[in-house]
């Protein structure tokens, strides 16, 4: 791997560049499409250079939405998505931190059973249990509400498992030293465990925020009121116009906007994210 041959360097770069182009080109196309007027994009010749209608398109979709498709302004959907993604990420982290703490540091009957039950739910993502979950949410009157969007997705076996594994790597002596120092269970959790889990929490936040942001099927099911539409499912509504060509320039503007928050989160939390995955502070 440390060979120094110009040909190999060229080849590896070529492969990488091709990979990047394959990934980036559709995004570029979306960006370009969002800057042209209506009709331009379906006229047969796909433009590859930016058009003049960028500000106009974005302000239309941001402020007014697409009434013909029954979609609210993008900012409403972005807000909904943001609330949902943040609540899911924060909720998942809090619940899994606490359950991992209980499983690792407390001895109670059926502790192992509890762990395995949590673990087994990994096999049951939303899509598998979607009908019973919908029934429960509907009976609780949580259709078209933030609770309905958030609660069914808020428990996380993966995060619990990750925190459990991390807690297991913390030496027992640290807990014993804290006990000798007069720290009770909650104090130990707050003063020692939480600060030590900081990087793990950050890494998980990034993953879970994106998980919440890209939720598609569940919001599609539980929201029929456009005030609770989320952006990712909203795009689907934008594109589905009954009897005319979809207004691609506006759809693409919405797509670009929908991509922004996850990208920003990754960019700004990248350092913590990588740190959380590769190193444990000990």
């Amino acid at each position, binding site marked *: 791997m440390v060979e120094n041959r110009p040909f190999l360097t060229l080849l590896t770069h070529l492969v990488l560049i091709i990979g990047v182009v394959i990934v980036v080109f559709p995004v570029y196309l979306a960006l370009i499409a969002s800057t042209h007027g209506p009709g331009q994009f379906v006229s047969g010749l796909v433009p590859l250079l930016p058009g003049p209608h960028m500000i106009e398109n974005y302000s239309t979709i941001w402020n007014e939405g697409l009434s013909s498709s029954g979609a609210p302004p993008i900012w409403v959907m972005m807000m909904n998505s943001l609330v949902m993604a943040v609540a899911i990420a924060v909720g998942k982290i809090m619940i899994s931190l606490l359950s991992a703490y209980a499983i690792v540091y407390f001895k109670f009957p059926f502790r192992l059973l509890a762990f395995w039950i949590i673990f087994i739910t990994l096999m049951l993502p939303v899509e598998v249990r979607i009908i019973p979950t919908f029934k429960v949410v509907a009976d609780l009157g949580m259709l078209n509400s933030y609770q309905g969007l958030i609660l069914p997705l808020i428990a996380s076996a993966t995060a619990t498992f990750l925190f459990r594994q991390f807690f297991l790597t913390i030496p027992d002596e640290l807990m014993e*030293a804290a006990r000798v120092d007069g720290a009770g269970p909650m104090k130990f959790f707050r003063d020692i465990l939480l600060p030590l889990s900081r990087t793990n929490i950050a890494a998980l936040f990034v993953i879970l925020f994106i998980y919440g942001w890209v939720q598609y099927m569940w919001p599609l099911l539980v929201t029929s009121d456009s005030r609770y539409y989320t952006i990712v499912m909203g795009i689907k509504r934008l594109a589905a116009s009954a009897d005319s060509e979809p207004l691609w320039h506006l759809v693409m503007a919405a797509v670009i906007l929908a991509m922004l928050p996850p990208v920003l989160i990754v960019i700004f939390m990248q350092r913590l994210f990588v740190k959380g995955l590769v190193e444990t502070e000990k």
Partner: protein
Amino acid sequence: MATINLVDLMKSYGPIPAVKGINLSVKDGELIVLVGPSGCGKSTLLRMVAGLESVTSGRIEIAGRDVVKAEPAERDIAMVFQNYALYPHMTVRQNLEYGLKNRGTLREEIDRRVREAGDILEIGPMLDRKPRQLSGGQRQRVAMGRAIVREPAAFLFDEPLSNLDAKLRVQMRVEIKKLQRRLKTTSLYVTHDQLEAMTLADRLVVMNGGLVEQIGTPTEVYDRPATLFVAGFIGSPPMNLLPVSALAAASGFETLDLPAGTDMVGIRPDHFALETPAEPSLALAATVELLEPVGGESHLHVRLNNGDHPIILSVPGRPDIVEAAAITVHVRPGDMHPFNRESGHRTDTPAAKPQ
């Protein structure tokens, strides 16, 4: 400042007993070292005193107060752990302060104690660093600092030096001893290293299989080991333990003048002499197997004739002896420790039973 009393202290994990009834009273200001092979229950005992292990039966009294049911923090003890157990995300200062803050000590008092501990242990300049920026020896000091600032009734040390390299270990050993002399805090110290135990202890507690084999000052334990186990455990190279028959065979005497019931004899490697001593002594015929020069002295591995028993001699300097040579080694009767193999006890001290 406190005494520690252990009364019939027992601990079992399910049906398996780990500590089988220990009685020990530690005087105020005394440094007691618990020593024994791994699995002898010494760490379990210490952790019971700390309150980190539950007690199956018996009593623990610290400063006259029964603390069996008390939380570790309520026992007025401080503990130094083998791997230091410093809080990695806190600075040295925060590490020292944490226990005090939890007990609601006043700010000025905390500052005073941290400053004092910093001076005593020479960790003042490192107060604002994180533990991972410190070397092993410095972390060890911080761990001790964390114990000192508590100003507890007793220090508990759980093999605090075993993660250090040999040179640093000797240095820290001296420092712990000085520190303990200076603070005069009652201390329990666990180690498996018998040299560490000998040098540190005011009194030694030699443990084996969950029981106390002998309690005494290091010299007492070294000079008059109470049991065969102690004889073999304390001292390096270990004491030679020989059946009386082998001794008789190698010396040519039919009977030796030993206390009744003696069937094993222990002789320290340095109590053998190659030259005939002035006092009356026993001469044993032997064959040299190996000569190990270790610097100022040499270890001579020999085999006794007529019985084939290997023994180790420690002789000063580098004797001019070749391997396979036939030699005579001398030992004074007074240097022989008589034991009974069955009971494991000495036969020359009446009623010197281990507690």
